[in-house]
């Protein structure tokens, strides 16, 4: 019950906003997210913004995922080194 896409708010007129994704424009209602500002990314479901994306939280999550990826790569490198033996 859940298709909602992150779109960037470009312009606000009253309760309606023009949002954009890769050059695709759409009119959506901000009735459920009156706090949304131009430049915010909002989750849009059936023509309404249901939530303003928290940029900071997004960065935290990405950093976590990046850390994970790097830890994984490091672990692989380490195990490859031990496989090859010392002096490699």
């Amino acid at each position, binding site marked *: 019950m859940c298709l909602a896409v*992150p779109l960037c708010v470009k312009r606000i007129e009253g309760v309606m906003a023009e949002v954009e994704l890769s050059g695709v424009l759409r009119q959506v*209602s901000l009735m459920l997210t009156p706090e949304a500002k131009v430049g915010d990314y909002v989750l849009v479901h059936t023509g309404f913004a249901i939530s303003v994306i928290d940029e900071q939280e997004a960065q935290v999550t990405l950093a976590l995922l990046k850390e994970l990826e790097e830890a994984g790569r490091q672990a692989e490198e380490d195990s490859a080194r031990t496989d090859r033996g010392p002096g490699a």
Partner: protein
Amino acid sequence: MKYTDEYRDPATAQRLISEILAQAAVPRRSNRVQGSASGIRIMEFCGGHTHAIMRYGLRQVLAPRVVMTSGPGCPVCVTADADIDYCIALAHLPGVMVATFGDMIRVPGTRSSLQEARAAGASVHIVYSALDALELARKEPQRAVVMLGIGFETTAPTVAASLVQARDEGIGNYTVYCMHKLTPPAMRGILDSGEVRVDAILGPGHVTAITGWRAWEFLPQEYGIPCAVSGFEPLDMLQAVRVLVQAVVQGNPHVANAYPRGVTAEGNRVAQELMEQVFQVSPALWRGLGEIPASGLSLRPEYAAYDARLAFSVPAELLDLKPSEMHRGCHCSEVLRGMMEPPECPLFRRVCTPAQPIGPCMVSAEGACAAHYRYGETLS
């Protein structure tokens, strides 16, 4: 594309998958009785998750150590066929235009579907938003527009918003046939209906954007089941699954917010208030599961003028009045609870097929039974 591509990185995904599989192999420190030999069972509640899991091939890559099962989170699939029959009857009434989301149009009632009704001349329009339906009502003042209100807490506020707008503008030819359902009562309904083999729940991210993650605290508190609220990109889902596997292995049921960029503890207060203004909680009929108390929404008396259940009288002969017989033998409830696999249901493939589905597990293109029917064995 921002906030999408970053959460689809293949290398990170592979990393998460390895971690999940490694962690899932660890013996559990849990005192819950379950069939631990068959892997950790995670129910994804939401149709959107089922779709995303299918799209990215996650089910196959996590099985058998982690088994993803589909819950009743596809609101279209759990719509009772009696309700669909009524909608079809409305669509045939002279002067009535039924507006519906696309997902709904193929779902069968006891005899027919909205798609077939349209082919037979009934006025059925696919809309992307309740606001489109309202616009239809403005453009066609001589016709009565009925918006089919399906969906959970993600969609209900949008329909509520359209009703508030209709009332503010005095649009007299717009009504809603309210079939909205609530997810926490649905989860309770399933978990209460018998033995359950579900170890964890992948929480619906966009429903929770509205309700707030506190709405799921009853899962660890009353059922000892962890819940991780998840977004819909593959890295979001894998991250949530990782958290759940850890919680199960460590015997630490709790609610985790694995979608913090979209979900908060308290949710969207504006949306909740709009829903409060327009709707009240009532019992609802769920396809395959029967009636679940306090699991649906209906319009408040103040909005009676906009209630399609009251506005029209449908001649009795337009209704097919035997919904319950259709579901005799339907085992969706057991399938949803993880107690039965699709091929074990006596109706599977014999009576219940994607073309003629009985319960929600087969109605949804990615429901457990439909998926099994189409894909059978998994890819190695």
